[in-house]
């Protein structure tokens, strides 16, 4: 009986998750005329024209590449600066450590929509001169990704006994040798999870990405808005772009699934 209720509940939840996605998937194989006239899950006249339109258009292809490039840069920068920071928080006590740890997280609380204005100035010609480059978006996104990555990595590192560090020194390892050869493999799942979250929050963010780019580094979500022509919304095309934005996420989650399952249970037993 209990198993039946669990099964039923989970099935209903999966249907709830899948239904809006399947509706978009089905729309992406229809013509816009059909979308507006007949409502059914199965396309009456199955068509690939929406996908064809996307793959043959440089506008869409470059937008896809742009999004992937800045997300990738963001993930790398985040990991490089977060690993030592998380190590400091997990291994040392120092003046103001608790406050600093919480302060890092407060940066995720700033309402993004507003801090956009100073960001545009900061990255603009009078500031860092990075406007409309992948670096601008990648760096801006570290505002959200570094705090979270430090928080996650600190949890994993705290789960590794300090005795490991000391044994390594006794065995004659230098600090970098210890860190790269012994410590990093031990927290590999944590690195996977931190990378997952950096990727995720950078891939889904729209406001900063759209304000810091114009044409050269235009991300996918912005291209979507820019594609809305005078003749209104081309629903089939929009649905197809939506479907394509799911793919990088699905691939990523497939690769990190074991890390996710085994635990980003922070500060584990």
């Amino acid at each position, binding site marked *: 009986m209990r198993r039946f209720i669990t099964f039923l509940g*989970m099935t209903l939840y999966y249907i709830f998750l899948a239904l809006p996605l399947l509706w978009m998937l089905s729309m992406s194989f229809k013509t816009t005329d059909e979308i507006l006239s007949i409502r059914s899950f199965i396309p009456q006249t199955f068509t690939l024209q929406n996908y064809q339109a996307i793959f043959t258009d440089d506008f869409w292809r470059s937008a896809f590449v742009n999004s992937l490039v800045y997300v990738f840069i963001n993930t790398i*920068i985040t990991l490089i600066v977060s690993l030592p920071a998380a190590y*400091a928080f997990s291994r040392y006590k120092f003046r103001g450590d608790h406050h600093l740890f919480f302060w890092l997280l407060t940066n995720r609380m700033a309402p993004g929509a507003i801090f956009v204005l100073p960001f545009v100035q900061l990255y603009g010609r009078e500031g860092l001169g990075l406007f409309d480059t992948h670096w601008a978006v990648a760096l801006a996104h570290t505002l959200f990704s570094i705090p979270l990555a430090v928080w996650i990595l600190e949890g994993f590192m705290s789960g590794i006994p300090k005795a490991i560090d000391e044994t390594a020194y006794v065995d004659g390892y230098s600090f970098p040798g210890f860190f790269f050869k012994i410590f990093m493999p031990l927290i590999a799942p944590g690195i996977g999870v931190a990378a997952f979250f950096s990727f995720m929050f950078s891939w889904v963010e729209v406001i900063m990405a759209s304000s810091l780019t114009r044409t050269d580094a235009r991300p996918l979500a912005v291209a979507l808005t820019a594609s809305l022509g005078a003749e209104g919304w081309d629903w089939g095309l929009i649905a197809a772009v939506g479907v394509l934005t799911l793919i990088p996420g699905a691939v990523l989650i497939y690769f990190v699934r074991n890390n996710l399952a085994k635990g980003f249970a922070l500060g584990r037993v």
Partner: protein
Amino acid sequence: MKQVNQRAWFFLIPALAVMAVNAFIPFMTVINYSFIDKFPGLPSLWLGLENYRNVWQDDLFTGALARQFIFSFVILVIQVPLGILVALGMPKKGIGATTSLITIGLPLLIPWQVVGIIWRVFVRDDLGLVPVIFDQFNYNYDASLKPFDAWATVVVMDVWHWTPLIALLCYSGLNAIPDAYFQAARIDGASRWKTFWVVTLPRLRSVLTIGILLRFMDSFRIYIEPFVVTGGGPGNATSFLSDVVVTEAIAFNFGPAAAMSLVYFYIILIISYVFFQVLTNVGSDSTPVQEA
């Protein structure tokens, strides 16, 4: 034991350098704006605290603030228990575990604007599935005219979008609990319900802390999804804080917009701090199952 060592700062330099550029400079700029009357092309005028006084007299802001509190409260009350339940129901191994992880993780990895578009085409009067379903039950669903329908749509969309985060965090938290704990509870003859409260939930505290904090701050900052789905309407029914502040900023009222966003930021900060303190301290000295 952690050692006291100021060498730690050396490890923090890269992260702090990036954060200083990214966080500190824009933040100072916004503080600066909040005290002046700034309009592009005109000399700025020092206003002192006037922008802040106006924030509280702005009905649009206070109205949106009230809706924002209700929204975040509803979201947390639904998503946290539902997320825990889903995590408990997910298969632990095999192909079932892989497929359910991917299905559940998918909504998290969709650009937020696309989330809005998915729900917009799902509920729209002229091309959505939802109005057709409600027709079967003789209910005339219309998110563009009925405030209740619009609210329900935004809440259900957020539940769809973000419950997976709580579920994934709890799922990994559950997998990290050693079996010995559950065996001990079984030997002691604890009921399922008791086991959940005494063994499972305390062990999920750290994942739930970050889950609840993330959910609170992100739901309080929600902008793009309701903007795409309902446009804040009908009327102001689903217009949340970010929407009001952005409207102000787009109209080049940088001073008032900056003051609003700082008030907004401190509300999030204070509540998050309270959550953080409560969640890290509650029940931390009453773990009934001792480590062996």
